C-alpha cells in the first residue's frame, strides 16, 4: 500500500508540473471586447474573474457540467483499464464512430432534439457496429484490425450521409448534432450533465463489482472458462460498460475522440505501476483530471472543441508518464543504462588493478597509461571513473600520480575478479569456448551476474577458492 501511495504521490506531483500551464493564461491581460459576429475568428481570452469562477465552480450550471465530465473521465479511465488489458480498446473506436448513423437517424425519424432519444439511437447503431465487428471477425479471412477498420469507416460514412440530410432540414442546423462529432461540453444542459454523472457512477460501480472477474478474463480467458466463468457474458458486460461510457461521453468528448478516453489514461497509468488496482485508480485519476480540465476550459473558451482539449490533456499525462515514470519510464530506463555503464567501467578499473597486483604479487601502483594499455578507454573515461573510484575511497593516487587500490578497493576488486574467473571457467567447461576468447565473453556477462547465479556457479564449478587462477595468459589482451 505504501508503494501505491508513493506512486500516486509521484503522479500527482507530475500533474502539478503541467497543470499550471493552463490556468496561467489568467495572468494575461484580457483583450478589449471585440465585436462579435458569426465569422469572427479572433480569440476571446476570458478575464481572470471568469477563470476564478470556473475553477472555483462558482456558477451552478458550470459546476454540474464540470462535475459530470470529470466523473465521465473517471469512469472511462476505470472501464478503459479493463478494455485496454483485454485488448479491446479499439472496439471503443469502432463503437464511437458507429454511433453517428444512429444519432442522425433518430433525429430524422423523430425530429426531436431530446438527448435521451438521440442517445438511444446512438446506442442502437453503436451496438450494431460492435456486433458487426464481431461478425466480421468470425469470418476466417478477415482479421480483427480489418473488421474494426471496415465497421468504423462504413458506419461513419453512413452517418455523414445522413447528416447531410439533417442539414437540409429546416430545423437541422439548429439541432447541434455537429456537437456529437467533436464534443462540446459548453453546450450541455444541466440535465445532460446529470445523465452523464449518473451513468458514470453506474459504470464505476459495475467495474468495481466485477473487478475480480474482469481481472481473470483479461489475464487468462481459457482458465476463466475452465473455472466455469461465463466468459462471453462477462465480455458482454464489459462491452456494455464501454458502450454506456462512450454514448454518454459523445456530447462532451465527441464520437471521433471518445476512444481516447478509454485508451490513453490506462496506457499512461501502466507506466507507473505493476499492480492492477493501482493502474485502475491512476487511470481513473488521469481520466478525471483530463475531463475536469477539458470541461473547465470549454466553459471559458466556448470555441474550443471540448473533446480535443480533454484528449490533449490525457495525451499530456501520457507523455509525462512515458518519460518520467520512475520504473518503466524512458528516462528511468536511460538512467539505469547509464548506471550500468558506470558500474561496468568501475568494475573494469578495479579488475585491471587487481590483475596488476596479481602479476606483481604485491600491491603495485600503476600509471594511467599503463592502465589504458590494458583496458581500451579514453582519457576522459578513465578520468571520470577514477574520480568516482577515489570518491568512494576504492583507489588512491600517489604523489607521482600513480594509482593504487585501497584496502576497501581491494576487497571489491577481488570480488569482481573472482566473478570474472568463475564465469570464464564456466564458459570453458560447459560452453566449449576457447580459453583465448573467454575473457571478452565473460566481460559482457560478469557485471550482471546476480548473487544467486554466482552461488550456482560456485556449486557447479565446485570451487570456493578465493580467486581461481586465470585460464589464459594475463596481459595478452588485444
Amino acid at each position, binding site marked *: 500500500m505504501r508503494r501505491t501511495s508513493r506512486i500516486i504521490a509521484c503522479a500527482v506531483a507530475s500533474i502539478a508540473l503541467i497543470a499550471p500551464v493552463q490556468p496561467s493564461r489568467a495572468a494575461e491581460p484580457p483583450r478589449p471586447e471585440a465585436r462579435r459576429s458569426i465569422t469572427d475568428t479572433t480569440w476571446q481570452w476570458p478575464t481572470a474573474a471568469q477563470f476564478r469562477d470556473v475553477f472555483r465552480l462558482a456558477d451552478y450550471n458550470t459546476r454540474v457540467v464540470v462535475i459530470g465530465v470529470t466523473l465521465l473521465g473517471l469512469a472511462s479511465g476505470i472501464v478503459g483499464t479493463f478494455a485496454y*488489458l483485454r485488448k479491446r480498446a479499439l472496439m471503443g473506436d469502432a463503437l464511437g464512430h458507429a454511433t453517428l448513423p444512429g444519432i442522425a437517424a433518430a433525429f430524422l425519424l423523430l425530429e426531436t432534439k431530446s438527448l435521451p432519444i438521440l442517445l438511444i439511437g446512438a446506442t442502437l447503431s453503436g451496438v450494431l457496429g460492435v456486433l458487426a465487428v464481431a461478425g466480421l471477425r468470425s469470418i*476466417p479471412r478477415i482479421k480483427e484490425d480489418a473488421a474494426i477498420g471496415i465497421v468504423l469507416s462504413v458506419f461513419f460514412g453512413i452517418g455523414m450521409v445522413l447528416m447531410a440530410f439533417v442539414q437540409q432540414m429546416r430545423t437541422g442546423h439548429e439541432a447541434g448534432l455537429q456537437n456529437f462529432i467533436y464534443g462540446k461540453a459548453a453546450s450541455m444542459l444541466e440535465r445532460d450533465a446529470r445523465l452523464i454523472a449518473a451513468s458514470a457512477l453506474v459504470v464505476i460501480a459495475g467495474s468495481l*463489482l*466485477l*473487478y*475480480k*472477474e474482469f*481481472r*481473470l478474463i*483479461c*489475464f*487468462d480467458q*481459457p*482458465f476463466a*472458462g*475452465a*473455472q*466455469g*466463468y461465463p466468459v462471453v457474458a462477462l465480455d458482454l458486460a464489459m462491452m456494455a460498460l464501454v458502450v454506456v461510457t462512450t454514448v454518454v461521453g459523445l456530447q462532451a468528448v465527441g464520437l471521433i475522440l471518445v476512444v481516447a478516453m478509454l485508451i490513453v489514461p490506462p496506457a499512461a497509468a*501502466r507506466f507507473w*505501476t*505493476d*499492480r*492492477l488496482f*493501482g*493502474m485502475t485508480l491512476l487511470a481513473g485519476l488521469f481520466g478525471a483530471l483530463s475531463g475536469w480540465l477539458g470541461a473547465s476550459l470549454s466553459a471559458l473558451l466556448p470555441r474550443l472543441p471540448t473533446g480535443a482539449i480533454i484528449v490533449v490533456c490525457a495525451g499530456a499525462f501520457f507523455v509525462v508518464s512515458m518519460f518520467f515514470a520512475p520504473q518503466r519510464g524512458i528516462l528511468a530506463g536511460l538512467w539505469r543504462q547509464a548506471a550500468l555503464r558506470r558500474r561496468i567501467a568501475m568494475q573494469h578499473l578495479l579488475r585491471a588493478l587487481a590483475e596488476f597486483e596479481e602479476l606483481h604479487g604485491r600491491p603495485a601502483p600503476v600509471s594511467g597509461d599503463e592502465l589504458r594499455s590494458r583496458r581500451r578507454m579514453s582519457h576522459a573515461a578513465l578520468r571520470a571513473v577514477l574520480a568516482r573510484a577515489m570518491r568512494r575511497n576504492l583507489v588512491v593516487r600517489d604523489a607521482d600520480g600513480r594509482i593504487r587500490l585501497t584496502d576497501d578497493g581491494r576487497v571489491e576488486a577481488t570480488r569482481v575478479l573472482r566473478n570474472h574467473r568463475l564465469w570464464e571457467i564456466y564458459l570453458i567447461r560447459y560452453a566449449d569456448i576457447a580459453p583465448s576468447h573467454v575473457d571478452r565473453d565473460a566481460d559482457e556477462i560478469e557485471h550482471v551476474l546476480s548473487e544467486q547465479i554466482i552461488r550456482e556457479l560456485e556449486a557447479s564449478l565446485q570451487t570456493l577458492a578465493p580467486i581461481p587462477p586465470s585460464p589464459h595468459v594475463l596481459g595478452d589482451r588485444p
Partner: protein
Amino acid sequence: MNHRAVDSNAPRDRAADRPSIATTPVPRAAPDHSEACPLSIHDMTVAYHRRPVLWDVDYAAPEGQLVGIVGPNGAGKSTLLKACLGLIPLASGSVRFYGKTYQQARRLVGYVPQRESVDWDFPASALDVVTMGRYGRIPWCLPPGRKQKQAALRCLEQVGMADFARRQISKLSGGQQQRVFLARALAQEAQVYLMDEPFSGVDAATEAAIVTLLRELRARGRTVLVVHHDLQTVPEYFDHVVLLNMRIVAAGPTATVFTRENLQKTYGGRLTLLDQAADAVARAGRT
C-alpha cells in the same frame, strides 16, 4: 473403433461387451462413463471451423497415475484438453469426470494452460495469479480474502516460489512463470489435473521441480494428464501414455504402449488420408 484405448484400469470395450443385436452398425447407446474413472472420453470428435482435428477419441484415464499425452505438432493434444474442459464445443461424443459432466465436476478439475497463452506483462504479482486458482471458491463480486490468499501462498511455497510472491510476473523467468501456473492449478485443489506443455521452455531446475510435484500429486492419489513434447523423458516421467495424432493411436501403460512401432504410427506420414479427409470436410462446409 479398433484404436480404442487398451487399458487394464479402464472400463473394457463396452460395445464389445453388449450382445450385438444386429450385424449392421447401430447408433451406440449412451456411454456408461464409470464413476470410478477420473476422466472418461467417449467418441469425441472436435472441429475448428468445421475442420475436424480430433476423430472418435475414446479414452479412460487410470486413477492416481501420471499420463503423458504425446504426438506430433497439430495432433490435437491441446485441443483434447480444451475440449475436455468445455472450452471448445464437441462435434460429437461426451466427456465425464468421475461420471459427472464438467459442469458438475468443475471443482474436481485443475487446468494448466500453455504458458505462452497469456500476456505476462499483465499488471499482477505471482500471488495475484495463484489466487486466481481460488476464484472458484469466492462468491461473485467479492474480493479474495486473507484466507484465500494464504492458501495461494502455500501453493507458491509448494513449487518453491514463496520468495517471489510479490514479484511482478513479467520479471519472472520462464521456468518461474511455469511454476506460478502450476501453483495456481494446485490452488484449485482438484482431483484431476490437465496440464498443457508444462515442460516447454523451462530450465533444468524447474523441470526437476515439476517432476517432483507431479509425483507428489500422484502420491496423494491425484490423476494428472500432461501434454508432453519430449519423447526421451516419457518413460521416466509417465506411468501411462496416450499417443495422439488426430485420433488415439495407442494408449496404455508406458511399458507396453510406448514402442517404436506405435511411435512410428503416431509420427509417421501414414495419416495423410485423415488430414485430406479433414480438408474435404472443411471445404464441404464452406461451399
